C-alpha cells in the first residue's frame, strides 16, 4: 500500500524548525515578556538590578505562586476557584491560632480546614454538577464570613509566638526566604504531577474535553474533585506561610487575590477553557505581576489612581503580547 508517499517539499525541514520555534514561543510567551520587562527595568531604573530587589521579588511572589499552582490545576480542568483569597486568609488566621500547639498545630489546623473547604467545593462541582464559578464564588463569600466569625468580626488578629513557625516564614537560606523554597517545591512537584503522572494527564484530558474523557473511561468526577482539594490546600498553605512570614494571622488579607492568581495563570498561557497550560508559564505569570508592581514602585511617585491605570495598561499589554505570541495554536 505504497500509494501515498511523503513527497514533502523542500520547505519541510525549515518548516519543522519554524514550527518548533513557534511552539516554544507559544508555550513560553509569558517568560519572554518577563525577560523583556526585566531588561527594561534594568535599563530604566538603576535601583532595579540589585540582589536585594530580586530577593524581594522572589519572596513577594512566593505566596501568590503557591496559590497559582493550585489555581493552574483547577483551570486546566476547565474550572475556576474564586475562593482562594478567602481561604488564604482563613489559612493564615488558623495557622496563628494553631501555632499555640507549635509547628504541628500551625500547619495541621489550617491545612485540614482549608482542605475540607476544597473537599466541599470539589464535591459540589464534581458530584453535585454545579458550575465552579458559582460554587467558589459562594466560597469566596462564605469563607470570608468564616474568617470574620473566628476573629470576632475581624477585630482580633491572632499572633504567632512559636519561633519554629516564624522561622518557616522568615528564615532565610542562601539569601532567600523559606517561603520561596516552598513555592519552588510547589512548582516542581506540581510540574511533575502534571506532566509525568497519570493524574496530571487526566487533568489535561478532562479540561481538553470532558465528554471525551468520560467516554475514554477516565474518572472525571474524581479528577475534578481532586483539583479543588489541591487548590484549597495550596491556598491554605500559602496563607499559613504568609502568617508565619508576618507572624500574625490578619483576617483581611487576600482580598482580590483570586483575580491575581487567575490572571497569573492565564498570562502564563493556560487556557481558561482548560486542557492546555503548564506551571512554568504560571511561574512567569506570577513574576510578571510582581515585577510590574515593582517597576511602579521604582518610579516611586505615582498616586494610587495613576498606579491603577499603569498596572491595568501593563496587564493589557502583557496579555495582548502573550495572546498574539500564542495565537497560531488557536483554532
Amino acid at each position, binding site marked *: 500500500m505504497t500509494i501515498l508517499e511523503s513527497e514533502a517539499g523542500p520547505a519541510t525541514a525549515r518548516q519543522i524548525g519554524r514550527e518548533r520555534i513557534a511552539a516554544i514561543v507559544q508555550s513560553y510567551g509569558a517568560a519572554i515578556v518577563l525577560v523583556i520587562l526585566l531588561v527594561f527595568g534594568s535599563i530604566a531604573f538603576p535601583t532595579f538590578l540589585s540582589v536585594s*530587589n530580586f530577593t524581594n521579588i522572589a519572596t513577594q511572589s512566593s505566596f501568590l505562586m503557591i496559590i497559582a499552582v493550585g489555581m493552574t490545576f483547577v483551570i486546566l480542568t476547565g474550572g475556576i476557584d474564586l475562593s482562594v483569597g478567602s481561604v488564604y486568609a482563613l489559612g493564615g488566621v488558623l495557622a496563628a491560632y494553631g501555632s499555640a500547639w507549635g509547628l504541628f498545630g500551625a500547619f495541621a489546623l489550617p491545612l485540614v480546614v482549608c482542605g475540607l473547604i476544597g473537599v466541599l467545593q470539589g464535591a459540589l462541582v464534581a458530584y453535585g454538577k454545579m458550575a465552579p464559578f458559582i460554587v467558589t464564588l459562594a466560597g469566596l*463569600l462564605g469563607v470570608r464570613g468564616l474568617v470574620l466569625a473566628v476573629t470576632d468580626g475581624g477585630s482580633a488578629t491572632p*499572633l504567632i509566638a512559636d519561633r519554629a513557625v516564624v522561622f518557616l516564614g522568615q528564615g532565610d537560606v542562601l539569601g532567600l526566604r523559606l517561603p520561596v523554597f516552598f513555592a519552588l517545591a510547589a512548582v516542581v512537584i506540581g510540574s511533575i504531577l502534571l506532566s509525568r503522572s497519570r493524574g496530571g494527564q487526566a487533568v489535561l484530558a478532562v479540561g481538553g474535553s470532558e465528554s471525551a474523557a468520560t467516554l475514554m473511561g477516565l474518572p472525571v468526577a474524581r479528577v475534578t474533585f481532586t483539583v479543588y482539594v489541591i487548590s484549597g490546600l495550596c491556598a491554605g498553605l500559602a496563607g499559613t506561610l504568609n502568617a508565619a512570614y508576618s507572624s500574625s494571622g490578619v483576617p483581611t488579607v487576600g482580598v482580590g487575590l483570586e483575580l491575581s492568581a487567575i490572571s497569573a495563570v492565564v498570562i502564563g498561557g493556560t487556557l481558561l477553557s482548560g486542557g492546555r497550560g503548564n506551571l512554568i508559564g504560571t511561574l512567569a505569570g506570577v513574576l510578571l505581576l510582581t515585577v510590574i508592581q515593582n517597576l511602579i514602585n521604582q518610579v*516611586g511617585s505615582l498616586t494610587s489612581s495613576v498606579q491603577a491605570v499603569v498596572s491595568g495598561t501593563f496587564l493589557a499589554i502583557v496579555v495582548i503580547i502573550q495572546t498574539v505570541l500564542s495565537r497560531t495554536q488557536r483554532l
Partner: protein
Amino acid sequence: LTGCTNTGTSGSGSTGGSTDTAQTAQAASGPTCDLATYGGEKLDLKNAVVGFSQSEKEDNPFRIAETQSIKDEAAKIGVKKLITTNAQSTLSKQISDIQDMISQGAQALIVAPLNSDGLEPALSAAKAKKIPVITIDRKLSSGACDTYVSFLGSNFVEQGKRAADQLIKGTSGKGNIAILLGSSGNGVTTDRTKGFVDEIAAKGPDLKIVAQQTGDFARDKGQSVTEQLLQSNPDISVIYAENDEMGLGAQAAIIAAGKTPGKDIQIYSIDGTKNAVEQIVAGAYNGVIESNPRFGPLAFKTLQSFESGDKVGQDIIIEDSEYDPSNAKDKVDSAF
C-alpha cells in the same frame, strides 16, 4: 454580596481646597525614643531619601490629604527624594512596598500601616538596616522604639467615645441608635465601635443600639443599609456612622424616607470632611468628630529631631477637634 473589601478607612468626599490646619500633638508624656536606643546614625533629612508607604488608595479625602501633606512637607524641607508607594489595602503589597523602598535606598520611612499587625517582615528589614520608621494614623501592636521609632496619630477608640458623648448631648440621652460600621476586619472599625458602644453603655442608659450593620465606609452602602433599617425599624432616631461618607449616605436615605435629617433623625459621624461639616452648618447633620489627616509637618518634625539625636515621644497623639452646630460655621474652613 458585598462586604469582602476593605476600602477607604477614614475617607469621605470633599470639594477640596481648604485652609490646611496642620496637626498639633497633645501634651507629650510617656516613653520616648532616641537614636542611641533604636540604633543608627545621625542624618540630615535634606540630603536623605525618604520613603512613604500609604496603606489605602488615595481615592478619599482623608488619604488624599494625608499623602499630600507628606509630599508638601517633604518638598518644603527639601529632602533629596521622596518615594511614595500605595498598598491599595493589600497587606502583602505594603510589605513589598516597604521592602522595595528599602532596596531603592530609602534612609527613613514614614508608614501608614494598613493593619496593626503583620508588617513584621518589612519592619525587621528596616531595622536590620537601621532605618528609622515613623508610623502614622494607625498604631502597630509591636514594640515602639524597637520595630519602629514612634507613632503619630489619633486615638480611634477615643474618637468613638467622643462621638458617643456628642450624641448623648445632642439627643439628651434618649433614642434608638443605628450604627453604620466601617469595613469588617478593619482596626479602625473595631476601635470606633468599641469606644462608642462602651461610652453609650456607660453614659446613655436611655439610648438603645438597635442595629449595627456594615456600610463598608462607602456612601452608597451607607445609604442602602439605612434605607433598609428605617423601613423595618421606624423608631430609629439617631444614626452613628463611623465615617462621614456613610453618614452622608444615611442622610440621603433619611430624606428619601420623607423625614428630616438632623431633626427627625440625627446623624453623627467621624472624619471632618468638608461635605459633612457643611451639612452641620445647613442644620441637616448633628455632629462630626475630626480625624486629622495632615500628618506631614508633625511627622517630618519628629523624624528630624530623632535624626539629630533628640529624644522623641513613642506615642504622639494628636489633637482632633470636633464640629457641632455651635462651631461648624466658624470652623468649616479647617475641614478637609
